[in-house]
Every structure is written in structure tokens, then in C-alpha cells.
């Protein structure tokens, strides 16, 4: 009997506490600066150009093969990079949000954004192209530094 009474006491005390429910569609959910949402392509605001050079490092390391890139020769002289990205497709339906692409990017051009609310009735709409990925990451700066083990060639910034 005593144990059952204890259980009643417990339910009564939790009845008196307020609910812990997150009112998600009405209130913004809990996200942190590190939350792994959709990957986004960073934009260099100083030079007003995309950082990505289309080097394909992320596509090679992606466990789920969700990235496709193509590049062309870089002709401007704002930076001394040799190539610039033309196509950058990312299939969010395949992406497993592991952030390996962020880890391996030598130019710090891709970043996991807390953006998570994307869904569609057509799976083909889940394939995001370059401009959409840039829009997702617009206004975002790299919050996490590359770990030393994966540190690649740092990006050289122009005077801009």
C-alpha cells in the first residue's frame, strides 16, 4: 500500500508542475548555434562572392554522396584562387547531417545551419542548388573552427 501511495504522491506533485511541452509550430523550437540543420554555402560579404571553389573535397568525403559540384576557371583577380564553383547541388533527402563536409572543406566555405524546416511533397524539390544553399547560410559566419587534424590550406583573402 505504501508504495502505491508514494506513486500517488509522485503523480500529484507532477500534476502541480507546469507542462514542459515545446509549442513548436507556434514558438520557435530549441536550436543551438551548432545544431545540424541543412548545410549552407557561406558568402564572403567583404568581396561579395562565394567562398566555395568547387574543389569537390566535400563531395568526395560525403558518406551519403549527396553533393555534386562542378567548377570553372576563376578569371577575376579579387582573390588568388584558381577555380570557382559553377554548380553545387545538395540532396537534402540523402544528407545525413553528419557535418563531415564542414570538417573537410579547406576553404571553410560550407557550414551546418540551424535551418531545419524544409519539406516538400516532391522529393526532387529537396535537391538544393547553389543559390538556395547560399540563401540558407546568408548572414551566417563560421562558428566552429576546423580541428587541427583536418586543417587544410587556409583561404587567402584579398584586400577588398
Amino acid at each position: 500500500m505504501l508504495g502505491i501511495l508514494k506513486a500517488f504522491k509522485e503523480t500529484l506533485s507532477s500534476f502541480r508542475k507546469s507542462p514542459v511541452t515545446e509549442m513548436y509550430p507556434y514558438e520557435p523550437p530549441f536550436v543551438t548555434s551548432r545544431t545540424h540543420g541543412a548545410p549552407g554555402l557561406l558568402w564572403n560579404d567583404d568581396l561579395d562572392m562565394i567562398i566555395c571553389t568547387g574543389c569537390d573535397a566535400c563531395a568526395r568525403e560525403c558518406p551519403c554522396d549527396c553533393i555534386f559540384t562542378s567548377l570553372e576557371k576563376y578569371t577575376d583577380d579579387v582573390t588568388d584562387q584558381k577555380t570557382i564553383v559553377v554548380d553545387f547541388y545538395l540532396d537534402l533527402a540523402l544528407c545525413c547531417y553528419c557535418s563531415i563536409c564542414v570538417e573537410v572543406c579547406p576553404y571553410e566555405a560550407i557550414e551546418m545551419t540551424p535551418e531545419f524546416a524544409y519539406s516538400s511533397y516532391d522529393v526532387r524539390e529537396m535537391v538544393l542548388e547553389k543559390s538556395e544553399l547560399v540563401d540558407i547560410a546568408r548572414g551566417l559566419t563560421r562558428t566552429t573552427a576546423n580541428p587541427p587534424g583536418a586543417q587544410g590550406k587556409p583561404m587567402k583573402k584579398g584586400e577588398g
Partner: protein
Amino acid sequence: MTLLDVVIAIVKVLVLLILAPLIALVFTYAERKLLGRIQQRMGPWHVGPMGLFQAPADAIKLLMKESLTPEKAERWIYLIAPFLVFGPTIAVLTGIPFTRELVAANLDLGLLYVLALPAVVIIGFVMAGWGSGNKYALIGTARMVAQAISYELPLLVSVLGVALLANSLDLTVIVEAQASTVWYVVVQPTAFAIFIMAGLAETSRTPFDIAIAESEVMGGPLIEYSGIRWAMFFLAEYVNVFILAALSTVIFLGGWAGPFLPPILWFALKTGFVVTFILWLRATLPRLRIDQLMALCWKVLLPLSLLNLVVVSVQAVYGWLPMIALVPLSVVLAFWFYRRAWTRLVMRPRPSAPRDLPTPATAG
């Protein structure tokens, strides 16, 4: 019987037919809200103000849904079963006096009527379980039948004491008798406890919901039902909870009698209290196993209720004086129950059978 009487009777039944879904709607809402708050959730809150329209929305959804009949079902038995569960439940409602005037059929044997009729429901569940052509339904039905038939006994015997005290089987007379003396829960606490427990087992509510246990037999007899037929089972369940609460109000808590407030409000208050308690039980207690449930019925509740009946009979014949002997007896009984009865009779640990184990790999 004049034509007017017939019309009045039909109107009364129609009112009850409208009342039954209303009861179910209110109770589902209350249950979900209360369970939600106990579990620190919100419960329904999205549809309508404070989620009030959630229950009607669910009801409409159930009505719109396709009512499937499995290929392996015994078609007619499967289709008729919900009516046999729903019908008697409504019929029981007619016998319950909400107030002195507000009763559909004031019967001289009202107590017997309201407690005996639910036994018909079992037939409906047997048909549902057998007709579904599903093994889980069959197991659930076997549990349901064993449980419901066993618990009829303590349920009936426990209220016999009250009938003796009130000298009547008429529910209105029982309430009047309480109004003139004292609520029977005071003089018959054991009977009240047994009545609530047996009633919960009858209606398959936690902690005795083994027949429809969704983590074990996934709804038992109801497993294959969908749409409006499932809604009828659902309705019957909640009306049964209401009947249990209303009956305990009428039999033990003084019915509609009470000062200041109008009688119907007193009735609603007391019933609401009991219903809240039943819903609270659902949030607090795990469920028993079938053999423990049967042991509790036959070895504990039935002897206790019979003892209670004997005590009341002795009081009726010899007056209050022999009752003094009851005090040490009840103390001893309570101690015995606490120390022995639960662990010896109800828990029933089974020695595990010798196991067929793989032979260990020989070393080296």
C-alpha cells in the same frame, strides 16, 4: 400503458442516447487533459479553445473512417458484436437515478438490474474476439471473459451489504436511506473499496486492463475494429466508467443528497470526483497479470466481501454491540493483508522452469 407513457419512455431513451456520446466526449477530454498534466504535457490544446473540440473532432474522424472487416473474420458475428456491447451499456444507464425525478426507469430491483445487465456485454466481447479471426483478439477475449465473470461476484456481494443496510434494492430508496442516516462509504468502506476495484475490473480499466492491454495483446477484442464500430466500443467503455462512478455515487456517496446546491449538481460533483479518481489511477498504477488478477478476485476480494456481508448481517440481527469485536478483527485483517496476502496470494512468483541452454564452448 397509454400512448403518452410510450412517448415519454421513448423520449427518455433518446435523451440517454444523446447523453452517452456526450459523456464519452467529456470523459475523453478530461482523461487526456488530466493524463497530460500529470505527465507534464499539455494534453489536447490545438483544436478549439483549450483543445475542447479535440474530442468531437476525433468522433467525426471515427465516423468518417472506413469500417474494415478482416478477411478471416466471422462476418456477421464480427459486425453485430459492437451493438451487443453498446446496447446493454445504454440500457444500464436507464436504471441510474440522477436525481429523485431524473431517472428513466425507477425499478424496484434497480440495484440488481444495473449490476446484472453489464454481464451481457461479455457476450458482445466474446463475439468480437472470436469473430475477428485474430489470435491476439482471442487471447484478449479469454482474459476478458475470465476477468469479467470472476469480478461479477465480489461486485455483487459487496453491494449486498448496502442493500441490507437500506433494506431495499431500489436505488432511490438507497439514496434516501443515506440522506436520513450517513453515507454508506462511512459504514461500508471495505465494500466501497471492493466495489471500485471490481468495477474497474469489470470495465477493463487500469490497473485491471489486461484484456485490452495495448502493450501485450494490443487492444484484445478490439484489435481489428476500426471506424464507427470501434467508436461504439470506445463509447461503451467510457459510459461504463460513468456508470461505475454514478453507481458508487448512488450506492456509497449519498447520491444527489446534499445541502445548498441543487441535487443534480451534487450528483455531478460526486460522480466527477469518482471519475477523476479513476482517471488518476490510470496515470499511477501499472497493470496486474492475469493470474494475479484472478488470485486477487478469488482469494482476497471475494472472501473479504463475504466477510463484509456476514458482518452487516450480524449487525442487522444483533445490533451494534457485536461490532466492537470488529475493531481488533479489522486490524488483524489489515495487518495480515499487508504482510501476507499480497505477497503470498497475489504476487505468485513462479519458479522458472529449467532452461534449455546452449552448451558452453570447451576451452582450449
